[in-house]
């Protein structure tokens, strides 16, 4: 099965444009993790801060553009992986290995349409 691993952390840790020392440190860990994932990694990316986010909001069918993320939260979506895993337990095991700050969360979501695995 394919799962998205969504990384939620307090982005402030990484500095205003994600160029602080914490980012350098975690980038190296992500590189190592990608190496470790090998063919199990289907896709993935890191995201710029929510200060760079723009939201198109549809209200009763009417579209409006807003600055900022879709919601203000304590932890923000900062990146994601799409991985190939045999089942939820395998996905959980991978999620536990995703580099993460001491406080943060990885949400595991099965993909709606499973790609060729």
């Amino acid at each position, binding site marked *: 099965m394919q799962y998205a691993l969504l990384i939620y952390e307090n982005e402030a840790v990484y500095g205003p444009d994600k160029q602080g020392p914490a980012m350098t440190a975690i980038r190296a860990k992500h590189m190592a993790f990608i190496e470790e994932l090998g063919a199990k990694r289907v896709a993935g990316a890191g995201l710029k801060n929510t200060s760079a986010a723009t939201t198109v909001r549809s209200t009763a069918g009417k579209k409006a553009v807003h600055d900022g993320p879709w919601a203000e939260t304590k932890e923000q979506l900062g990146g994601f992986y799409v991985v190939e*895993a045999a*089942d*939820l*337990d*395998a996905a*959980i095991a991978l999620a536990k290995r995703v580099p993460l700050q001491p406080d943060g969360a990885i949400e595991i979501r*099965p993909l709606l349409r499973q790609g060729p695995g």
Partner: protein
Amino acid sequence: MTLDLTFREASARVIGALASRFRSLDIAEDAFAEACARAAKAWPRDGAPRDGPAWLYRTAFRAALDHIRRTKTAERLAPEPPSVEPNAEDLMIDDARQIPDERLRLIFVCCHPAVAPEARAALTLKLVCGLSTREIARAFLTPEPTLGQRIVRAKRKIAEAGVPFEIPGPEAWPERLDAVLSTLEIAYSKAHEDAALAGPYAGFAEEMLTVTRVLAELAPLEPEVHALAAIVRYGEARRPARLDEGGAMTPLSEQDPCRWNRTLIEEAEACLLRAADLNPAGPRALQGAIQSAWCARRSLADPAPWSIVLALYEALLTLRDDPVVRLNRAVALAEVLGPQAALTEIEALDARALGEFPPYHAVRADLLRRLGSVEEARAAYLRVLALDPAPAERLWLQRQVRRLAPST
């Protein structure tokens, strides 16, 4: 044996084996229900088979295959089901012992952390103990449609999230086993709360004896599994003494040990001994040791083991510092150091978190009564009564209120 009983006893074995084979709880459950329906027609007509569970497994297996073929034809785009061609062994078995024993997998699936905690116990009781949705709904004091929905959602989550039909690997085992044991504890507390075992819980406690025995057989090296089996047996052993002639509950320290079931106590001791051999300091082993201290009493003339109980709660507190443990420890403290020391402890607990927990008010009421604070004691007893306790508890509480000195 009645048909229903045969079905119930076979249910975990058959559903577990089918679910592991077809990787779907729904297919397994539907196929088992179909097999039971066919049995209900065929057995009275043709005579019961030599081996009921084996017959049910064979029939359910075929029903599952038929179902998969039908859906395959109906939805060409549906994902390929796993290879399910029956092998000779599957169709020839005439002996329930040859049904692959996948009950442990089934328990781990039902108690997976991805399943909402309130649904885990319900799902386990349904699939592992074979209780009906109605029986579980009554035990959990939840309307049947709500409970049914909860079970449906849990099964959908298991299917959609890809919860595996596997026993977890060693690295996940402690965390996962604890989820299983906590689920069973919740299930058992439902049965234990009601001393009279009057209506909704009848048969329920019996199931817990079975499921803990099965789990202990399947995971013989896990101390906490044996400890839980012991706790359930101690609890059930004391059941005959938990009601007085008037139908009111009898507090543990006033129960006549002569009325306890010695056979069950011996079984419990054996379970606890195995647990203690493996790890005497686990939280459930300590709880078992507390039960064991009580059950060592042979008559009401033997002194109550309060100081041992207090020491064991102290030890338990270092592992599980929660308000319920603190409350139980305070009860022992009252007997060893006096009610004032215990009340001081209790007043330090979070009254808001425990506001809906009847024992909190009951213990408080008792301490206040012993300290002569009649009106405060009365108010606390009335708080418990307002929380709608089981009938035997209600009778006892009403008696306690009547015994208080009249208000001036």
